[in-house]
């Protein structure tokens, strides 16, 4: 079993729609949960960073962590064509020397 599993997509939605992206993880000891966005031929960049269960909101983006279910989500409201990218979940932190592990990424396309 992979340590983190991500819905592969691709996902195509119309502009203005609400997007839901999801990942599950296997080790309940993971403490840090991140979402990265990667545009074509670029390195990923951090979008959201959380370390506890619950919701964290930043503008049109909301990150949700459910540690009891080992499930993390990213919601995008009022999606824009500029949101078209690959979204990668990442987890870390069951020890101070823990590496950061990424999901396989979901390719998202927002249709104008």
């Amino acid at each position: 079993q992979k340590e983190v599993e991500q819905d592969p997509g691709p996902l195509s939605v119309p502009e203005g729609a609400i997007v839901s992206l999801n990942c599950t993880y296997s080790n309940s000891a993971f403490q840090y949960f991140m979402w990265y966005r990667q545009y074509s031929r670029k390195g990923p960049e951090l979008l959201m960073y959380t370390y506890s269960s619950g919701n964290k909101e930043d503008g049109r983006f909301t990150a949700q962590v459910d540690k009891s279910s080992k499930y993390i989500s990213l919601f995008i409201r009022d999606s824009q064509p500029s949101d078209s990218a690959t979204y990668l979940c990442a987890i870390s932190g069951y020890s101070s020397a823990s590496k950061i592990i990424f999901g396989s990424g979901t390719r998202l396309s927002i249709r104008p």
Partner: protein
Amino acid sequence: GAGVSQSPSNKVTEKGKDVELRCDPISGHTALYWYRQRLGQGLEFLIYFQGNSAPDKSGLPSDRFSAERTGESVSTLTIQRTQQEDSAVYLCASSLRPSGELFFGEGSRLTVL
């Protein structure tokens, strides 16, 4: 520099040759990662350096792969006797602290013919 710098940005090599990829992290960042990203895929963890601790090499796919880091500075990823399946983008990232925000370079795109 202002960001993570990787070189070369593109490398085409013949099967069986050795290649060396370089990463120059953000100054002061103690953590450094190498990931591999095949076309249309996610990031595959290769190796993690944290300060002066022994690196986590658990992601290296074979003994043809090795990496070094000089203190908290430059890192090189070496692939010996390259194979076609090694073709991918190799991404380097650095972070100020363990499990902190990763800052990625633009990647080194390796093509093995």
